[in-house]
């Protein structure tokens, strides 16, 4: 017993070193799991507060740009309003519409922190559980998809953007084209890679990429980007496609969290049929 004790005293520095390294590695490994709500991350209270204060300063610098962007988006939305269409049919009868039920709800949020030059990047937004944001919800920006919510705290959420190793979403070439899988290889923040488009399909540089229909996180046909280059892969039957992302992560500051109102129903149904097999 005395020997063990004296050993401990003699090598206390080394033991402490090993202990601290092991705890760090445990933290790293725990943080990897995608669905677990990580205890400490940028949606935690202190760091989110610091980022919010800092962001409020920085925002003034980009105010005019941001106003222009919002005005553009307002104009685009205004174009879709009923009163901006000419009513050609006089016989039309107005009915209280119960045919269409709302499927997606959008929660506007402000980006308080974003990294783009790491291998695993994160975005922190200023809406959380109290505003209806939940994990695994999709996030889109004015120009296209942004990412998926990873963790939520009461008033903040951290988002895995396209620029993250774990990010994957099904995407198609053109509206109604073939489905592939979009991911990011850790390179430039302007480009992502689309996989799984068969070689016999005809594609061209400049083709638009949209979100697929079977992803429940995003509405169908949200813009992802355009094809900037592609090469047929020599090892398999698919193309290697470079996609120029439509969202500019360097300048993004307002996003919308997508709440699919029927997601639970869909998931329960799918779960149910899987259990029956």
């Amino acid at each position, binding site marked *: 017993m005395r020997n063990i004790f004296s050993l401990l005293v003699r090598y206390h520095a080394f033991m*402490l070193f090993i202990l*601290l390294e092991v705890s*760090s590695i445990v933290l*790293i490994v725990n943080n990897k799991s995608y669905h677990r709500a990580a205890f400490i991350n940028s949606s935690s209270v202190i*760091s989110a507060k610091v980022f919010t204060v800092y962001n409020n300063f920085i925002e003034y610098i980009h105010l005019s740009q941001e106003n222009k962007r919002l005005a553009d988006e307002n104009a685009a939305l205004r174009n879709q309003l009923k009163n901006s269409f000419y009513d050609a049919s006089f016989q039309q009868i107005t009915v209280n519409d119960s045919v269409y039920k709302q499927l997606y709800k959008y929660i506007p949020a402000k980006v308080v922190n974003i*990294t783009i030059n790491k291998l695993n990047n*994160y975005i922190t937004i200023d809406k959380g559980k109290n505003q209806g944001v939940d994990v695994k919800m999709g996030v889109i920006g004015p120009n296209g998809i942004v990412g998926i919510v990873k963790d939520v705290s009461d008033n903040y959420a951290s988002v895995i953007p396209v620029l993250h190793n774990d990010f994957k979403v099904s995407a198609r070439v053109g509206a109604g084209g073939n489905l592939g899988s979009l991911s990011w290889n850790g390179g430039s923040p302007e480009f992502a890679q689309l996989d799984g488009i068969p070689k016999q399909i005809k594609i061209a540089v400049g083709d638009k990429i949209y979100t697929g229909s079977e992803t429940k996180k995003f509405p169908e046909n949200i813009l992802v980007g355009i094809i900037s280059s592609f090469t047929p892969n020599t090892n398999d039957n698919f193309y290697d496609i470079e996609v120029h992302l439509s969202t500019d992560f360097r300048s993004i500051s307002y996003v919308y969290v997508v709440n699919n109102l029927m997601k639970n129903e869909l998931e329960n149904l799918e779960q149910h049929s899987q259990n029956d097999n």
Partner: protein
Amino acid sequence: MIIDFFYQLIRFVVLVLIQVLILNNLLLPGVFNPYIYPLFLLLLPIRMPIWLLLLVGFVAGLTIDLFSNTMGMHAAASVLLCFMRPQVLKLIEPSGGYEQTDKPSLNHMGFRWFATYASILVVIHHLFFFFIETLEFGQFGFMLLKILLSTSLSLLIIFLTEFFFIRRKSR
């Protein structure tokens, strides 16, 4: 003693803020990830007991992790830096040993000593950090380039910071 403690605390807060608010948000190509916060660990007192050094390193690393969503990575690298620090100090000890009043800064020890000291420890820190970061991606060529360029940039920033705070009387 207490004044010294407050100096260290203020330096810690300032370096962490510079790191997370400015350096982490620089719009540089992905191969440039400079880190200035190791300067705080470099400038801790020479005679600090190693267990305290390790704990301070761990806490400092965790603080950076908290702000950059890299849970545990900076903590691991900082603890390694702190563990190697006494060895490096011994390695480059001037003949006659360290004086009671010596501080491991450019101001006290001169540029050649500080450059050796900072380079060795910052290289160890960056090597370990980028190694952990790359483990899951497996792009080792990219990692080597990143280590080389980021380390150079970090060291440049650290030296410039130290030059900025050099005192006139010691020149």
